[in-house]
């Protein structure tokens, strides 16, 4: 009996040339659950006396919206970015928490010699996390171009006023690229490490040793979903900010 840990998700079966991995399947199932849940909630909205689930949803959404407004500063901007950030939060949170449903690790599929578990934490697949990160990063670049204009955007990176500001502009390019790495590795690393830690502890000392680590994983599942969404909002806020120097220039023009 050995530990079966792989960085990439395992392939369950293939449709044509397209491999269906276990985390892809999990992502589809969870998306379906979320879409159906939201559809059901939306159908049962009541104006006068809200039900239990509507109450919970209203508390969650209005609390999250107030928090986004407190970060970004204006309600108009918050209305634009809130749907994306909250969708990311809900999707990451539910896909992280879904790994704690007991019994699902026992569902396996036999492919020849090896045994492949059908469900895997969705965020423990680097491809999924990378796509979500790219959505954030590309959105931030588009917002920066829309706010500063194409020349203002390029001028931030290629600044010929002095050698120091030229160097700082080049460092900004590195900073933008580092966003991709830091945002995606943080989520992926936390979730994947939680899975590996649980597996190793279960392997070394079964049944009771993994419990504290599972609690830690539960905490980091919630915190990482929160952090990913909040960092998206913060990056958008930083990109949409007009610096004082620039406003002065614009005023003089």
């Amino acid at each position, binding site marked *: 009996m050995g530990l079966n840990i792989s960085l990439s998700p395992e392939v369950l079966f293939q449709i044509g040339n397209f491999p269906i991995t276990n985390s892809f399947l999990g992502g589809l199932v969870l998306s379906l659950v979320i879409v159906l849940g939201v559809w059901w909630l939306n159908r049962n909205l009541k104006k006068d006396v809200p039900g239990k689930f509507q109450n919970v949803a209203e508390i969650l959404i209005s609390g999250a919206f107030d928090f986004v407004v*407190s970060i970004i500063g204006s309600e108009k901007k918050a209305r634009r970015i809130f749907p994306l950030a909250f969708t990311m939060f809900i999707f990451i949170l539910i896909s992280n928490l879904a790994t704690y449903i007991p019994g699902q690790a026992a569902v396996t599929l036999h492919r020849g010699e090896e045994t492949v578990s059908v469900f895997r934490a969705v965020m423990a697949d680097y491809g999924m996390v990378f796509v979500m990160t790219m959505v954030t990063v590309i959105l931030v670049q588009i917002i920066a171009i829309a706010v500063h204009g194409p020349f203002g955007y390029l001028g931030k990176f290629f600044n010929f006023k002095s050698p120091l500001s030229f160097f700082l502009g080049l460092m900004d390019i590195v900073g933008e690229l580092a966003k991709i790495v830091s945002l995606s590795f*943080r989520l992926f690393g936390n979730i994947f490490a939680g899975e590996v830690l649980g597996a190793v502890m279960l392997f070394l000392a079964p049944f009771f040793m993994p419990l504290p680590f599972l609690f830690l994983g539960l905490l980091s599942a919630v915190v990482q979903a929160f952090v990913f969404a909040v960092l998206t909002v913060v990056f958008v806020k930083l990109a949409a900010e007009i610096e004082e120097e620039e406003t002065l220039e614009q005023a003089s023009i």
Partner: protein
Amino acid sequence: MELEAAKMIGAGIAIGLGAIGPGIGEGIAASKALEAIGRNPEAAGKITPLMFVSMAIAESTAIYALVISLIILFG
């Protein structure tokens, strides 16, 4: 030295050294946040989420080291 043994040592050193800085940094962040809450307990609701975000940012270098060592071990 065999390749397997070298891999194990490399992974251990990577995560061991990489965890030092973020450990110190997160400790400082938590202690300052608790100090601030102690002075002004009403601001706890505002301070706690900011503390989590800044701790997660401080954590990222440890996560890089962790990912590197996981890639060395299982990649």
